[in-house]
């Protein structure tokens, strides 16, 4: 419990702990003294949902359109990996597909599952496992590297053809931003604090110095 003075009316008062989303007001002059941010999980969920939508759009729309000597070409992300496959580079195609599509998709999927499961407490214990998987997928989802790669390729191609960015490109850009936002807003601690322990029981008190 903190002691503060209202900036407006200088009333000396105690500031209690606030629930998430709650606000403290001065009893005398009703000025807002402080607010507790809402459950960060909400924000993370909103962002993850958006990421899911944007991901679908980014992968189903063509990345860009290219025209040269009267011919046109365009490709999606999956199309790019598929071309490598067709050209005989099977392993490379798989790697590219994994880093560009599968890893981000899995990350989004796992995060969504975790976040949605957390809305109905108590969170089941498998949430933890899912979060671990999401975490392991994270270093492998290289959407931003791919973006830069596409841009470099575009610049190389732009010399001999006219290139037009497509919806897919903007989608990937949006996805990168969203991923960054998710990583910023999401605090795993929120999960760990609320999760139902694998052992089934409530979190025990921490035991200091135990084991020695």
């Amino acid at each position: 419990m903190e002691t503060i003075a209202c900036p407006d009316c200088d009333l000396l008062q105690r500031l209690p702990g606030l629930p998430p989303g709650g606000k403290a007001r001065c009893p005398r002059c009703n000025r807002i003294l402080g607010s507790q941010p809402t459950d960060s999980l909400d924000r993370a969920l909103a962002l993850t949902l958006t990421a899911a939508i944007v991901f679908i759009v980014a992968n189903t729309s063509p990345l860009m359109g290219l025209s040269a000597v009267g011919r046109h070409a365009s490709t999606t992300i999956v199309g790019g990996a598929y071309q490598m496959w067709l050209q005989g580079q099977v392993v490379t195609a798989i790697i590219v597909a994994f880093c560009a599509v599968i890893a981000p998709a899995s990350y989004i999927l796992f995060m969504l599952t975790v976040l949605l499961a957390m809305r109905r407490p108590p969170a089941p214990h498998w949430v933890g496992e899912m979060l671990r998987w999401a975490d392991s997928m994270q270093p492998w989802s290289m959407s931003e590297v791919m973006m830069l790669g596409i841009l470099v390729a575009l610049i190389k191609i732009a010399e001999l053809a006219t290139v037009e960015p497509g919806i897919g490109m903007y989608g990937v850009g949006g996805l990168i931003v969203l991923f960054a936002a998710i990583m910023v807003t999401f605090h795993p601690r929120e999960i760990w604090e609320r999760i139902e322990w694998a052992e089934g029981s409530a979190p025990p008190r921490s035991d200091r110095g135990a084991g020695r």
Partner: protein
Amino acid sequence: MAENFDRDDLPRATVVPKRGTRISIVWIIPILAAVVAIGIAIQRVMSEGPTITILFTVAEGLEAGKTFVKYKDVNIGQVTAVKLSTDHSKVEVTAKIDKSAGDLMVEDARFWVVQPRVTLSGVSGLGTLLSGNYIGFELGKSKKAQRKFTGLEVPPIITGSQPGRQFMLKAENLGSLGIGSPIYYRQLQAGQVIAYDLTADGKSVQMKVFINAPYDKYVNRDTRFWNASGVDVSVGAGGVEVRTQSLVSVVAGGVAFDTPPFAVKSETAATDSVFTLHSDKTTAMKQPDAISTHYVLHFTETLRGLSVGAPVTLLGLPAGEVTDVGLTIDPATMNVRGRVEIVSFPERLVAHLGQNKAAIDKMVQASAQGRQDIMRRMVEQRGMRAQLRSGSLITGQMFVAFDFFPNAPKPKIDWSREVPELPVVPSTVSDLEAKITGIVAKLDKLPLDTISADLTKVLTTLSQTLEDASKAVNRIDSDVTPGLKTTLEGLRGTISAVDRTLTSTDATLVGRDAPAQQDLRDALQEIARAARSLRILTDFLEQHPEALIRGKSAENP
């Protein structure tokens, strides 16, 4: 002044908990994203045109996601998949067509692969060497939408948007024409043959031709088309004439058209009108005869060598044509006769008239009845008859000639029949033949052996007698001599007569009981008697030479 205060006495700030489940503002982001995504999806669905499948025998250079469908050089769709059809006989190409071109996917729309090609009409599609093959498209006229098509193997000769019109030509056979064969108007290429097929009855070939603008306006109802393939050689009074339209037409066949000079200004022919393809320019430009009358002729002689289209002449000038050659059998009597149907074109004869041309022309043009009158008078009063004649001894071709036979028997013609029958006379050829056959037969039958044997005997006796007689004459020179002389004169006359008779065999030898033959026999018998009596006289004179002086006495019989 610092005051000691107990913190617990201080008031507490009011805690205002989160009101209900107020939705945080952050949810705008996913909602926005969802709206945009749905908008994109809807736009994509709305702008999607139909998906079509085209069956090709070979899909050369067609790649999914790359090959376009183009119309007038504008992309109207793209190939999305290329795979074998279920029965593995053809290639099934799936293409997504732009929405803007969706309405063009109708029943008779045509698709083909545009690739470099060399055809009769030239080289096409070279641009695809650079740009890659694409699928060409041509409009169809139908209104019925369709999604499954069969691609053409070769590009259509004419495209729907090309200005010009289509017509049909009918010919007996295709000749050396083919798809792409050029069509000329005054030696300018005006169009092409685009398709051909056998007519339903299998008796002629029908060709579809396309005449480009602006030449199509020269095709009117009187226009004639003729086969101008190859080289046209004609030998005429002026010498040998060689005509050809173009090198292409020599190789690939060609058709030419023009409007004959005698055609009055007639209206332009409607699209898809049918024209006859004549075999050459002369036939094509022949003026049709407006007035024609049909007649039938019956012949008892052979009609071999008479073909349909053979000329009918009057006094050697063209007057009509043979239209049919056949037989009639009278079932009752089993009498078989040859039947020839002819058509007469009086205008042709009128063209040859010198004076009175206008007057006769007027009569001819006047009415059918008038023409019939003319015909009747010529047949009944002037003895006009039809006769088969040989046109060429080499080919054996015959023709029908009308000529005047004043001595011909009176005909019985029923002029009221629709196709009157005209009288005929047998042809001279057969007449001569018959005569010769008859003479040969008769000559065969003559007992020439007997006659010649008799003749030899008589001649021998005669020569003997004459010898004796000349002996006798040398010895005597008296009154007996005048008698003898007379007998000798008479004998000489008889011999001359016999001589004469023998030289004119023609009339005298005809007929077994011909009077001449009988005369000959009589004459020969006479000679024999004369010779005998002369011998008796000579013998007597030898024995009784004084008889010449004294005469025959009673005592010497």
